[in-house]
């Protein structure tokens, strides 16, 4: 073996990356030279401890300092009501509107129940239903790794993966059963509950998109598909976004209503309460958030553009804000949908303790 051989694409990738790095370097503001305050800080801390130990007034100051430290985690307040769920390397985070966070250690792929009262999450080979405060309601052990749990509109059904198999279980943990043994064979697993129904759309191992009435175990329609990566329903269940390379929108009967261009890729989200679709398009290493609207999706409006990749999109429950996980910049951007207003929250990797080594995945913004 010659470890020094170039890897495939190494040279071209290096040139492309250098351009991106150079651009990021140009945009960076040099920080002013900092004075070393450490000796003074040590002296002040020593005096504070001494005062706390010796005087009642000092004790009050110490309590106040301690309390402020316990609340210092409020870095990320949300501009709109609701709670945001984030899946990070070591577990899931629930971010409240005031920015306080609760860490649910060891869980992955967490998903909100319809009203945000519960979460369904994976923990190794277990499917777990728990409250956002970490209280576990039930667990279901499977033989293979569990992933991607998703609640139906009323919370009475949860679809999830166990290895490559797609399964469904009742919201109380009973009635677990197999839907298809291979939901992965034709690409990434993709499945989504149709709002206001117990109909589940999913991809099977035969390169098909299938709409299944889960309770009646009846297939409503099948459509061919190549490499489906994501399936999303509009709020009224009458539009289905299929991302399989070039994304397209299907009607309720599975027929194509409109293709959405050739370069659009994930992430994607329907605008709440409408048939408009928010997609991320990547061109020349820049990503753009574009809203496609109109009867045939002929209207397109770019609402944000930036270098690198966007890892996720989530609309606020009141539809006024769009949260963009700008992964390359390690930032969350809250974009006001009715006017051009942005709030940037930096160092997202640190906020969720994922550090620069791991990604924190924006799951959803739920419920007022």
């Amino acid at each position, binding site marked *: *073996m010659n470890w020094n051989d170039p*890897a495939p694409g190494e040279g071209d990738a290096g040139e492309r990356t250098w351009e991106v790095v*150079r651009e990021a370097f140009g945009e960076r503001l040099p920080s002013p030279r900092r004075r070393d305050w450490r000796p003074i800080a040590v002296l002040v801390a020593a005096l504070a401890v001494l005062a706390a130990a010796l005087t009642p007034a000092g004790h009050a100051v110490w309590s106040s300092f301690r309390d402020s430290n316990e609340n210092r985690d409020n870095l990320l307040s949300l501009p709109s009501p609701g709670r945001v769920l984030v899946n990070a390397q070591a577990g899931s985070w629930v971010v409240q509107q005031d920015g306080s966070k609760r860490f649910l250690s060891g869980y992955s792929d967490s998903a909100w129940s319809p009203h945000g009262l519960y979460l369904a999450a994976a923990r190794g080979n277990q499917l777990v239903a728990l409250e956002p405060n970490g209280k576990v309601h039930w667990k279901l052990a499977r033989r293979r790794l569990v992933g991607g749990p998703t609640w139906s509109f009323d919370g009475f059904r949860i679809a999830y993966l166990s290895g490559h198999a797609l399964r469904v279980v009742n919201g109380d943990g009973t009635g677990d059963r197999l839907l298809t043994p291979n939901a992965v064979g034709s690409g990434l697993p993709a499945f989504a509950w149709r709002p206001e129904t117990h109909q589940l759309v999913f991809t099977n191992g035969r390169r098909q998109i299938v709409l299944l009435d889960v309770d009646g175990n009846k297939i409503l329609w099948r459509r061919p598909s190549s490499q489906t990566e994501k399936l999303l329903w509009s709020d009224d269940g009458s539009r289905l976004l299929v991302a399989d390379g070039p994304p397209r929108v299907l009607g309720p009967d599975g027929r194509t209503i409109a293709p959405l261009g050739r370069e659009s890729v994930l992430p994607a989200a329907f605008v709440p309460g409408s048939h408009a679709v928010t997609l991320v398009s990547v061109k020349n290493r820049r990503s753009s958030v574009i809203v496609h609207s109109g009867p045939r999706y002929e209207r397109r409006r770019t609402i944000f553009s930036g270098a690198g990749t966007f890892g996720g999109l989530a609309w606020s429950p009141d539809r006024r804000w769009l949260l963009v996980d700008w992964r390359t910049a390690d930032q969350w951007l809250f974009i006001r949908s009715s006017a051009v207003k942005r709030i940037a929250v930096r160092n997202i990797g640190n906020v969720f303790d994922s550090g620069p*080594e*791991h990604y924190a995945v924006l799951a959803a913004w739920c419920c007022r």
Partner: protein
Amino acid sequence: MAGSPGDERAWIRGAQRGFEADLEALFRHHWPGAYRAAYLVVHDAGAAEDIAQEAFLAAVRALDGFDRRRPFGPWLHRIVVNRAIDWSRARALRREVGDDALSLTAATERPGNPHSHTLAAALAELSPEHRAVIVLRHLLEYTPGEIAGLLGLPRGTVNSRLRRGLDELAARVAEDVR
């Protein structure tokens, strides 16, 4: 480009002061190792580019606070390898293409180096954790103690992963050559 520790400190100092040429020297010195490490763990050129690129962007963001006395390479490689392991684990759960397609890609993209085809394909069959320690040890030439520090693992775990990974790799390469 010599790339001695002294050069590296000078590049970082220059980049911290805003000199693009120093940042470029640092980038060009470390790009091959970062990209190859990512590629050998994920076996996907696009993902390797994204992972290595994001590691360098993280470096640019952290530049002002970077301690010049610390070596830059281990800091960068920790990011690259951990992200590559994350990516591989995610893909293992949600497999996009089979191993046959991966080895075919490797074979068509690397003409003139048949020995490496076998090795790349064999490496791709190991778990991401085993790939990572082998890449850190044999591509980036870290000691087992340093790898333990980079991946946050006990040294014994690193040694056992190295031993098992290399045994498995040798067996697979021997099978392919036969």
